[in-house]
């Protein structure tokens, strides 16, 4: 992601964008963790909060930012609404920090955590 100014260019790495996005995800209600992108032996492992940017994939092509998020959600919440809240929080936070618009935010629900069964 490159932003041009009169004096030169500002380069923002996908990794930096992933950090911003993961912070917004972890503050979204209903998210109990982020997961790595690949399933290892069919197991979904929750990443430590400090490593949560690894659950984010950022692609920038033609100045278009596309963000993929791999999340674990609390069992017993309305998943569609939680995901909707994640998308708007991530879009808002990334756009605010970068001053550039985000074309897409895709959420992959990798698993659910059951804290208490009803």
């Amino acid at each position, binding site marked *: 992601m490159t932003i041009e100014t009169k004096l030169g260019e500002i380069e923002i790495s996908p990794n930096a964008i992933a950090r911003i996005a993961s912070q917004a995800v972890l*503050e979204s*209600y*209903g998210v109990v963790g982020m997961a790595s992108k690949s399933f290892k032996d069919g197991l979904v492992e929750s990443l430590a909060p400090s490593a949560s940017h690894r659950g984010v994939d950022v692609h920038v092509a033609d100045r278009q930012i596309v963000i993929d998020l791999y999340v674990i959600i*609390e069992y017993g*919440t309305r998943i569609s609404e939680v995901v909707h*809240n994640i998308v708007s*929080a991530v879009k808002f936070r990334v756009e605010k920090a970068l001053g550039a618009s985000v074309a897409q935010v895709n959420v992959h629900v990798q698993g659910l955590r059951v804290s*208490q069964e*009803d």
Partner: protein
Amino acid sequence: MTSPIGQRTHAQVGTRALCGGQSLKHALFAARQWLEKHAAAVNALNVFPVPDGDTGTNMLLTMNAALAEIERSPDDSVSIIAHAVAHGALMGARGNSGVILSQIFRGFARVLDNKDTFSAEEFAEAAQEACDTAYQGVVKPVEGTILTPSLARWQEWPDSPPTTLMMSSKY
């Protein structure tokens, strides 16, 4: 206290009153009215996570969905009423605050499972569980959201009457 025949919503056991399903229902409808009155003020407070000023509206819509489940219910069991409200809030949750509200109702209903009535002590226990359930649903709880007011000092119940509790808590 004498109640009309057929109503056992304020059954007296010893000196302590017990709350039944219909009383709980009336309390929830009163809460909705209170929320409706102050929805605009809550909207004005909304700055997180996206400052779009819709927290009051979202909570009211969630509350409406929750109460639609019990509007015509004649059930006098607090368990049935609380579970119906929790289900309605889950299905109709709107926004972060709505999802939090649905978790508050979920925790509340869990403690009242299979109970026809609750005492002040049981209410305090249910309210505490509601708060704990709400806090479990997020990695980084942010204070100042609707999570915070659920942290009222439930452990002081039932020795301090509700009015004292409401006045002394910050919210």
